[in-house]
């Protein structure tokens, strides 16, 4: 094998490759400059053809839908494009026309007209109009041609003016008829006058006759003119009525006495999707949705056939199968003898109004819940506060480990009760929100012990906090609520057991947290609705339908977002994101370990609380913490108090019977300006507390609170930040 032998083979191969390269370049060039309007793409499903749609695509859709005929013809007479209307006007199909030469159009008038427009020079041709007989009627078409910019083709618009012409002709005929009659009468009378004049011109009384006749002629002429103008007026009125019916927003249907549709207006076409042509000859049953029963239609029919007007509401079906709601009035139409000749239905599409009404009812429902929750919250939280305080005291005093466990259970239950009120208030947006800088990891860590207790034994719990701090600006209680609600749902989704994983992490400018379960997942059909209030899949009495709606509300209020996913392998994952805070202040740990509470140093505390159980419990705890306590039941008692030494702290309920808490603070500060104040409340409308705290440097405690929180809050007001250890 020598070099020379190989050369021709290689040369052939190179030549072959060169050809293929040229072919590829040619293909690219053709696609780039728009010479190709389709490409073939190989894929897993085999070869597929894709049409390249240019920017002209929307115009083509528009042209397709026009009520004018449209056709594009090359200089050589080749029909490049036409719309359905054009084909209809020629009584043929689009496929049969495209690709043909205009010479092959059977109708000679159309053919000639197209040829004329094609031959005419200039950007825009003068309109050409042709008339010819088709199906026993005269059809008139108006053609206008526009020369396309970059090639020699011509785009032609065709308008069917047959009806307009027919109307004009009828009007003209009727006017001519009238004028003919005037002329006849005028001539008749004139000749009569002439006769009279010739025969008896001399006779005076006859002269008077003639004058009378001339007057009669004038009168007759005037009468005829009045008749004509009345007729014109009535035509105008008819046209106006027709325009109103055509342009009304209500859909109007006229049927004969057996219900066969004889007329529908454009609003009907727009609302139902059925065209005029599709509706005529049908009955309104084409709209039947099945939402009304047979009895409904029977009542309707017996009413209108008996000659009464029927008013009512339909849920009907559009041509595309979607439903809509309408208010309808159906009346019989009678002729001069009183016989019913037709029925006319006037219907208003009220789909939007019905939907708005639903929303309004829903909003009112939420409003009612909010009011109810607000009303109950105060008393309920007072009860919980009394219980919680007693439990704390019992925990201190009981050394028996078994009892301690029971007390802890009791404490948990009380907290759950508190969470329930909070949930309702949050849902009705009546909860005061207090933002601080928090580490999402830490919230998760603090919740861990609690979660361990609420998760059933047949569920494994996995917690994966992020490796970096996740600083967010948030209301701790609300974020805890979100995690608890999601975890609770996850547990409920796994009645047979499974795994619950909660992971947190850091994305771009956002902290995320995922709660995943291995339960049954959420069917795709209802996935969009899970965040809707009162939507629940749980049995009646098992779920309020509020949990996820509250979650959604809280996350949205914090500027975050939440998504739900159900992977193919099963289970459900809820993931929320909250914006990360860039600058973060140092934050103290949430709860110090029990038994290590900051104690009082004998400071004097004045307690004002109208609930006896709460008052006694709090007094005991304050003493236990090392404070000297004076407790009273009303604000009036508090300001009357006979004490020489000032109080360091006033701890007062916000909503006292009688003088309100804020007033008590104001009055006592006149006496002891340096006295600190802590307001305690079961519930107060948002805004009231915030304003008070901001204006007067109060501390604020939400009932029910535990001993640790009370101890820390007291130290926080008593030891100013600079003076702390």
């Amino acid at each position, binding site marked *: 094998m020598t070099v020379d032998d190989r050369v021709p083979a290689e040369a052939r191969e190179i030549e072959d490759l060169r050809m293929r390269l040229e072919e590829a370049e040619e*293909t690219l060039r053709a696609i780039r400059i728009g010479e190709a309007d389709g490409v073939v793409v190989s894929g897993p499903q085999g070869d597929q053809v894709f049409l390249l749609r240019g920017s002209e695509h929307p115009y083509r859709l528009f042209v397709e839908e026009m009520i004018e005929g449209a056709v594009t013809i090359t200089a050589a007479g080749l029909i490049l494009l036409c719309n359905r209307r054009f084909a209809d006007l020629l009584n043929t199909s689009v496929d049969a026309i495209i690709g043909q030469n205009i010479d092959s159009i059977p109708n000679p008038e159309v053919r000639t007209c197209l040829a004329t427009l094609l031959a005419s020079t200039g950007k825009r041709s003068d309109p050409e109009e042709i008339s010819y007989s088709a199906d026993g009627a005269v059809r008139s078409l108006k053609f206008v041609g526009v020369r396309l910019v970059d090639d020699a083709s011509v785009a032609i618009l065709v308008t069917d003016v047959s009806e307009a012409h027919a109307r004009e002709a009828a009007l003209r005929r009727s006017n001519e008829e009238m004028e003919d009659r005037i002329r006849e009468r005028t001539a008749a009378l004139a000749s009569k006058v002439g006769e009279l004049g010739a025969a008896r011109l001399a006779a005076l009384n006859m002269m008077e006759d003639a004058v009378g006749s001339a007057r009669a002629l004038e009168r007759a002429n005037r009468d005829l003119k009045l008749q004509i103008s009345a007729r014109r007026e009535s035509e105008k009125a008819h046209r106006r009525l027709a325009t109103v019916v055509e342009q009304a927003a209500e859909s109007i249907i006229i049927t004969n006495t057996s219900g066969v549709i004889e007329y529908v207006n454009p609003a009907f076409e727009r609302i139902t999707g059925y065209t005029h042509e599709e509706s005529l000859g049908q009955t309104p049953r084409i709209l039947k949705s099945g939402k009304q029963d047979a009895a409904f239609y029977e009542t309707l029919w017996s009413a209108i056939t008996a000659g009464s007007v029927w008013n009512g509401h339909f849920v009907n079906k559009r041509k595309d199968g979607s439903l809509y709601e309408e208010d309808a009035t159906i009346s019989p139409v009678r002729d001069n003898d009183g016989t019913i000749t037709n029925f006319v239905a006037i219907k208003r599409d009220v789909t939007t109004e019905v939907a708005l009404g639903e929303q309004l009812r829903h909003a009112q429902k939420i409003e009612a819940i909010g009011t109810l929750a607000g009303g109950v919250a105060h008393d309920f939280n007072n009860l919980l506060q009394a219980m919680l305080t007693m439990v704390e005291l019992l925990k201190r005093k009981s050394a028996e480990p078994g009892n301690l466990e029971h007390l802890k259970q009791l404490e948990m239950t009380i907290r759950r009760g508190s969470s329930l009120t909070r949930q309702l208030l949050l849902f009705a947006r009546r909860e005061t929100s207090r933002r601080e800088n928090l580490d999402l990891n830490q919230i998760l860590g603090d919740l861990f012990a609690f979660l361990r207790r609420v998760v059933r034994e047949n569920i494994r719990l996995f917690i994966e906090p992020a490796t970096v701090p996740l600083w967010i600006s948030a209301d701790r209680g609300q974020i805890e609520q979100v995690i608890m609600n999601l975890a609770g749902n996850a547990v409920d989704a796994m009645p047979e057991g499974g795994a619950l994983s909660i992971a947190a992490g850091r994305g771009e400018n956002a902290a995320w947290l995922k709660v995943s379960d291995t339960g049954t997942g959420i069917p795709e059909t209802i996935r969009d609705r899970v965040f809707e209030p009162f939507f629940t899949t749980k049995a009646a009495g098992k779920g309020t339908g509020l949990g996820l709606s509250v979650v959604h509300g809280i996350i949205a209020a914090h500027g975050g977002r939440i998504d739900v996913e159900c992977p193919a392998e099963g289970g459900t994952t809820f993931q929320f994101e909250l914006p990360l805070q860039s600058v973060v202040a140092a934050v103290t740990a949430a709860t110090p370990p029990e038994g290590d509470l900051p104690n009082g140093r004998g400071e004097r505390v004045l307690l004002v609380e109208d609930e006896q159980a709460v008052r006694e419990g709090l007094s005991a705890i304050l003493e236990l913490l090392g404070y000297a306590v004076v407790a009273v039941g009303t604000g009036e008692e508090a300001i009357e108090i006979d004490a020489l030494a000032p109080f360091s702290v006033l701890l007062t309920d916000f909503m006292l019977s009688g003088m309100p808490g804020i007033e008590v603070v104001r009055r006592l500060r006149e006496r002891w300006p340096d006295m600190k104040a802590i307001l305690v409340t079961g519930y107060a409308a948002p805004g009231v507390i915030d304003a008070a705290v901001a204006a007067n440097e109060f501390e604020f405690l939400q009932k029910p609170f535990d001993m640790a929180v009370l101890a820390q809050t007291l130290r926080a007001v008593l030891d100013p930040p600079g003076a702390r250890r």
Partner: protein
Amino acid sequence: MKETAKAEDGVWELRLYVAGQTPKSVMAFANLDRICKEYLAGRYRIEVIDLTQTPQLAVGDQIVAIPTVMRRLPLPVRKIIGDLSNTERVLIGLDLRAPTAQP
């Protein structure tokens, strides 16, 4: 034997690949028909293949863009993409110049 006969007859076999009645496809057919009538009168056959109906037919002839006309006979195979409105380019691309120039 048949193939040879065809070659001797000098019958040209052309295939036009189109995708339905797009303007370029319609144009391409009209132009091809006109050019063939003029330069190959009685010696050609045009087969139109609509790839929206039979996309699998694109594979054998490696068609990627539409419209494409392919000269199958005489060999070698040649292809031109576009609406074929530039007659000059079509004549060169299909190698149709030579025969008319010879006699």
